[in-house]
């Protein structure tokens, strides 16, 4: 017999989330969230070590490691301490970096129409930072404060991520275990990628102070989190879309 089931037209398709899948999704959420909560200290330690290693590889002098308070139930996390350029005291460097960056953005704005609004967003962040440095230099902060803000946000992302992963991967994939595996991979990737991004941001701040800190925070921070989540989601969906509806036999 040919397959007895005919996949319905796309206008009426839906996926049955059976009890098994729902239970598996719930277990995934609980397990991943509990893992983050329970193992947050070792995770933060690994995160810090990866960050330190990358900073050393890129030749950034590391003053030490300092503990920073995250949120009350979570205790302190170790972060690298790196000397950050007080760029407001070096107006030539400040204006040079600012001008070069703006020129690059403007040139990209001219050449790439579809990225114009995004570039305007980045230019706004840069202008705001420059304004603060010129008119309110007391607002400058160091790598420790930046890393603390970073980790607070990333920890929240790691805790929220299992909820997205359960609905995006476990419930949708034709093979639920593939979905669970993909959820775990996303979580691991998120932690490692966070360390890499933080290392780059701190390294850049060592040379440029807080001039690019808003861009790091908004673009390389939150936006990059959403981007990698979307990438993982799109790959998982591509696999699911290929395998959910079968192929017409010739």
């Amino acid at each position: 017999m040919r397959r007895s089931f005919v996949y319905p037209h796309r206008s009426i398709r839906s996926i049955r989330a059976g009890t098994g899948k729902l239970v598996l999704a719930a277990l995934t959420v609980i397990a991943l969230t509990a893992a983050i909560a329970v193992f947050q200290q070792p995770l933060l330690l690994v995160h810090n070590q990866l960050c330190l290693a990358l900073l050393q590889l890129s030749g950034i002098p590391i003053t030490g490691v300092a503990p920073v308070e995250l949120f009350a139930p979570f205790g302190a996390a170790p972060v690298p301490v790196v000397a950050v350029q007080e760029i407001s005291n070096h107006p030539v460097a400040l204006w040079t970096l600012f001008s070069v960056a703006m020129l690059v953005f403007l040139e990209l704005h001219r050449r790439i129409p579809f990225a114009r609004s995004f570039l305007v967003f980045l230019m706004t962040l840069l202008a705001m930072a420059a304004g603060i440095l010129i008119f309110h230099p007391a607002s400058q902060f160091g790598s420790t404060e930046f890393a603390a803000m970073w980790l607070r946000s990333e920890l929240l992302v790691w805790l929220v991520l299992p909820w997205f992963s359960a609905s995006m991967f476990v419930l949708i994939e034709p093979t639920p275990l593939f979905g669970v595996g993909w959820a775990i991979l996303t979580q691991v990737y998120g932690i490692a990628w966070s360390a890499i991004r933080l290392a780059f941001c701190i390294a850049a701040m060592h040379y440029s102070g807080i001039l690019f800190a808003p861009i790091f925070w908004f673009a390389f921070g939150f936006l990059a989190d959403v981007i990698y989540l979307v990438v993982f989601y799109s790959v998982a969906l591509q696999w699911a879309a290929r395998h959910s509806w079968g192929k017409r036999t010739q």
Partner: protein
Amino acid sequence: MFDFIAWRFLLFAAAFGLLMYLQFYLGHRQWNRLKGEQAGEIDVNYVRTENYMAQSFRMKVKDWLQLPVSQDREFGPVIMKGHERIRTLAGMDLADHATCDDILVLEQNFSCGQGCSLTREVLVHGNSNIGSESRLQSMAADGDLMLGEKVSVARWVDSNGELTLSAGCHVGSRVTSLTRIRLGLGVEIPSASAPQIVTAEWDSKLPGEDPASRDLLEIAFPDGSEAVEESLAAAKLNAKRFVQLGGDTWLYKGEVRPPVPVRLRRKLAVAGDCYFPEGTVLEFDVKAGGSIFLGPSCVIRGNLVADGHIFLGPGCRFSGLVHAEKTLLLSRGTRGFRVDGMVAAYAGEELSLETDVALKGKIASGARAVVIDAAAAQAWRDQRRIQDDGSAVDQVHTS
């Protein structure tokens, strides 16, 4: 000389930039692959017909028969379509429990005994007779097609002549005929379409006799006059709950439970349930946000739509479309007929037909359409707490 340049940092920055780009790499690569491709997603030539699958199969066979014929040691002349074999024969009579894995094209008649298994499509130019408990993939017959008891068809069946599904048959997809479809007790199908669809014990009359005419209470619609309000009160309707949606369409914000048979001459949307007593005549479309229960011998000349269940009592006549979001029961003696077109009945969940139901057009369901006996029909009514006459269990009618 260039010690002030942080080479290692620049390398790290370049690597970081590459890693950032990698987030977009898959998308960028996919865009390069999709460039210039036109979407080919809609078949603009598609024309909706009920027997589309069968006619499409007939056209494909026409093309396949143009393919080269080869000689098979076991079967003689065959046409190979990929890994499938197409056999053209004058006729065929398979013994009990026989199996055939080929696509068959038969110039004359076809029959098979009990428990046969035909795993590919079959086109029969003559008549076809399938033994009980056999299993088919799908079959198209130019003559009459008879499926024995408990025959199971994975996909569709179609005939130009009369198509009979004996008791207990199960079909996975459309059942279509250009003449008549007979459905035995316990038959389960998703949809059927024919000039006549009849269930067991049909009295051979379609449309049959109209119910005896009787005096009916005319439902007038509010125009501010006292006479209309009194008439509405007799039908247990509150004039203040009517809203004119526009033109000839009204909305009633409540339940409709007239104690006497009524005649409705407007399109009406009802927020709650409707219970219409025996002999009610609905001249135009009626829609209920709840369920619609019609007593025996009601006449429905418009469309009937409900977000809940629909019950047509014994001997009802409908000449439009009946759409129940949940379940639908066509009681014994129900007739669906119109002179200038076809009727249709659809249930989002189960569509149940009792015996002696006949209609010209189509039945379809989101789950299954099934022919049930009186006991099952009683169970249907008990579950929804209605009586034989369509009234609620706690309701008393006056005639």
